[in-house]
C-alpha cells in the first residue's frame, strides 16, 4: 500500500504479488457450473485474512463463495451492507459425444464466437488433458469453402488418443497461458478473473465503515444465476458488480477516411475503470454513479463511462432481488473477451481497484436515503 498523502488514502496497488495471483486465476479452468478451481484459489487466498478480520466465509448451495467482513465496532451509527460481486466462471466447452480414439464432439458453454474456435489448443477436465480443435489443411480446402465459417457440427476436440480420464460431460477451456505484453496482459478468461482478483484485494483491504459482503459468483455466463441467490442471502443495502467489459477500440476498416471516428468503442484500453450507465440487464443507480464519478474526480483517478448498450453483469440479477437493491457495475476494460486470448492493461486494473476501494471508504452512509 502506497501512502497517498494527497488523498489521505492508502489505495491498494497492483504489484508483482497481484499479477501472480491474476496469473493463477486466469490459468485455472472454471467453465460455468464447474468453478471449483477458482473457488479453491479464492478460499486459499482469503481464509486466513478473513478469519483475522473476524469475518466469515461460506460456500452456498450453488457454489458461490460468500465472504462477510464486518464493519468496525468503533463505527459510529448505522452502517451500510455493501455487496460486491465478481463472477468466477468463464465461457468454455463441454464434451457431448465420444467418437473414440480421443475424438469428441463438443458444445459451447456461454457466448463464444464460433468463428474463433478452430485451430486452438484446449485443456480438458480437472486434469487439464491437452487437446486441439483442428481444421482440415488449406491444401484440402476448396477455394469457395474459405468464405464459409466452419460450423460447430464440423469441429471436434482431438486428444491424440483415447484417454481413460476423459468422458462426456467434462468441461474444456482454451489452453492459452497468462503472459505479460509490455503494459498489457494476455490471457484467457480475463473476463472475469480481473474482477475476482480485484475483489480478493478489496476483501484483504476491507474498509471499516461498511459491512463488506463479497460474493464470488458462479454461472454468470449462462444466466447470472449465482449472483441472484447470493444477493438474496446477503440482503445488502446496495451492490456493485465487478466485471470486465469489451473494449472495441480498434481501427475501423475505413480508418483513412477524413472525419471518421470509431463511435462504437464501448470502452477503451488505458482510459481507466468503466462505469456502467445502462446495459441490457440493468439501469445503474444514479446515486452510485454520482458517487463513483465524484470519488474518481476528487482523487484524480482516471475513469470512463461504458457506452450505454447491450451486455450485462451480475447486477442484472442482483438489482431485482428481494424488494430491490440499488446496483452499479464497474468493469476493467478488456479486448477480445470470450476468445482464446483476451488483452487488458495493467493500469486499468490498478485504477479500477483504487477507485472501488476509495468509493467504499468514502461511501456516505445516507447514500441510498436520498432520492434517486
Amino acid at each position, binding site marked *: 500500500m502506497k501512502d497517498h498523502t494527497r488523498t489521505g488514502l492508502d489505495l491498494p496497488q497492483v504489484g508483482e504479488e497481484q499479477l501472480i495471483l491474476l496469473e493463477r486465476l486466469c490459468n485455472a479452468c472454471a467453465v460455468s457450473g464447474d468453478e471449483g478451481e477458482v473457488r479453491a484459489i479464492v478460499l486459499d487466498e482469503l481464509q486466513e485474512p478473513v478469519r483475522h478480520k473476524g469475518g466469515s466465509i461460506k460456500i452456498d448451495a450453488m457454489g458461490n463463495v460468500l465472504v462477510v467482513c464486518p464493519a468496525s465496532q468503533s463505527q459510529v451509527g448505522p452502517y451500510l451492507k455493501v455487496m460486491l460481486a465478481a463472477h468466477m466462471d468463464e465461457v468454455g466447452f463441454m464434451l457431448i459425444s465420444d467418437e473414440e480414439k480421443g475424438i469428441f464432439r463438443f458444445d459451447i458453454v456461454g457466448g463464444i464466437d464460433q*468463428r*474463433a474456435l478452430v*485451430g486452438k489448443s484446449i485443456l480438458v477436465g480437472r486434469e487439464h488433458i*491437452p487437446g486441439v480443435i*483442428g481444421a*482440415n489443411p488449406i491444401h*484440402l480446402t476448396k477455394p469457395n469453402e474459405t468464405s464459409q465459417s466452419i460450423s460447430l457440427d464440423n469441429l471436434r476436440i482431438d486428444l491424440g488418443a483415447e484417454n481413460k480420464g476423459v468422458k462426456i460431460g467434462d468441461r474444456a477451456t482454451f489452453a492459452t497461458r497468462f503472459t505479460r*505484453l509490455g503494459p498489457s496482459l494476455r490471457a484467457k478468461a480475463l473476463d472475469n478473473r480481473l474482477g475476482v482478483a480485484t475483489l480478493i484485494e478489496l476483501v484483504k483491504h476491507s474498509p471499516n465503515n461498511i459491512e463488506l459482503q463479497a460474493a464470488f459468483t458462479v454461472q454468470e455466463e449462462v444466466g447470472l444465476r449465482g449472483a441472484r441467490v447470493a444477493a438474496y442471502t446477503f440482503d445488502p443495502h446496495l451492490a456493485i458488480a465487478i466485471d470486465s467489459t469489451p473494449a472495441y477500440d480498434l481501427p475501423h476498416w475505413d480508418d483513412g477516411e477524413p472525419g471518421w471516428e470509431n463511435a462504437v468503442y464501448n470502452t477503451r484500453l488505458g482510459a481507466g475503470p468503466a462505469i456502467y450507465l445502462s446495459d441490457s440487464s440493468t439501469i445503474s443507480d444514479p446515486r452510485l454513479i454520482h458517487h463513483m464519478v465524484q470519488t474518481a474526480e476528487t482523487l484524480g483517478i482516471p475513469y470512463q463511462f461504458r457506452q450505454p448498450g447491450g451486455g450485462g453483469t451480475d447486477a442484472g440479477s442482483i438489482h431485482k432481488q428481494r424488494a430491490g437493491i440499488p446496483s452499479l457495475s464497474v468493469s476493467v476494460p478488456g479486448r477480445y473477451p470470450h*476468445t482464446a486470448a483476451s*488483452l487488458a492493461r495493467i493500469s486499468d486494473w490498478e485504477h479500477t481497484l483504487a477507485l472501488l476501494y476509495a468509493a467504499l471508504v468514502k461511501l456516505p452512509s445516507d447514500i441510498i436515503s436520498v432520492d434517486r
Partner: protein
Amino acid sequence: MTDLLPYLKELMTVPGLSGYETPIRQMLEERWTPLTDHLSVSRIGSLHGLKRGSLPEPKPSILLSAHMDIIGLMVTKVTQGFLRVTEVGGLDPRVLPGQLVIVHGRQDLPGLIVQPPPRLLPSHAQNGPVPLEYLLVDTGLAEAELSRLVRSGDLISFAQPPLETGGETLTGPYLDNRASIAALTHCLEELQHRPLAWDVWAVATVQEEETLAGAATSAFQLRPTLAVALDVTFGASPGSPSYRTHPLGKGPALGWGPNIHPYLFNSFKKLAEQLEIPYQTEVMPRMSGTDAIALQITAQGIPTMVLSIPVRYMHTPVEMVAIKDVHRAGRLLAEFIAQLGPDFMDTISWEESSAQPAIEA
C-alpha cells in the same frame, strides 16, 4: 542419441519464415556440427551437411532434403497501435483469429491475431469468416511504442507452445516441416556408427513454402546421384477425406507418382518390409507438393524419392504428429543409406525386371 520429443518441441519454437531462415539454420548448425564432416551454407541460405562415404572418387552421393522454412504472416501496415498483415505461405484465414504470435520487429514482441467486431467492419465482412485484409495483430503496446518497434515488412510467426497429447503425439505449430528436420537429424545420428559407401548430403532447404528455391539451388550445386525429399503429409482427422489422408502412428508414407522414381519407391518398400518398419503408401497423381518437384528436374534430372510423415491439421498452429512416425522415418532413411553399395546405380532401370531391388543384403 537425442530424445526426439524435446528436440522437436525446441525446433517448433524457433522461427525461420520462408526467405528468413537464419534463426533455425543457426540452431541446426550447432546440432549438425558433431554429426557431419563438413557444414556449409548455400548462396540463398540452405544448410548443407556432408557425411563422407568410403568409396573412391567419383563417389555417388545422396541428397536428403527437409525444408526448414515455415509459414506465417508479414506486416503490411502499422496503424493506430495495431498491425495489418498478409500471409507468407498458404494459410486458411479462418484459423487465424485468436492465434498467439510473435512479431519479429526491432525486438521480438508477443501478440495475438484478432478479428474486429462486426461493428468495425464493412457490411460485406460482417458475417462469416473475416478476410485476412481486415484482421489485425495486437501487441498490447501503446501506439507510439509499437510504431517505434515495428515496420511494414516485419515477420510474424505463430507462438502457440507445443503440447504433448495422447498416444505419444505432439501438437503445435510448424511440425510442417520441423518434424522432418527432427527425422533427418535422427537419421544422421543413426548413421554415426555405420560404415557408409556413399557421400550423404543432409540439406535443410529454404523457401519450400513459397518457391522451392532452396531445393532447386542446392540440388544444382551439390549434383547428387539420388535425392530424397522429407516432408509431412496429410494426417487422417475427423472430417478429412480418407482417400487423401494417412493415419498417425502407422509409419511414414512412401510417395508414389510422377515426382518419384519407381525403382526408389520399390527399394524403400522392400526395405521397410524386410526391417518390419511400418509404412504407408501415398499416391501423388500429379505432383508431390514437396522439394521433390524441384529436385527431380535439376540439371540432367535426379532419381528422387519422397518420404512423408503424417501430420494432422497441416498449416494450422495445432498440427499433430505421432513421435514414433518421426523415429521411423529417420530410421528407414538411415537404413536405406547404410545399404547403398557401389553398384546401386547399376541396378536402377526402367525395365520391369528391376522391380527386384539390388540392395546389398
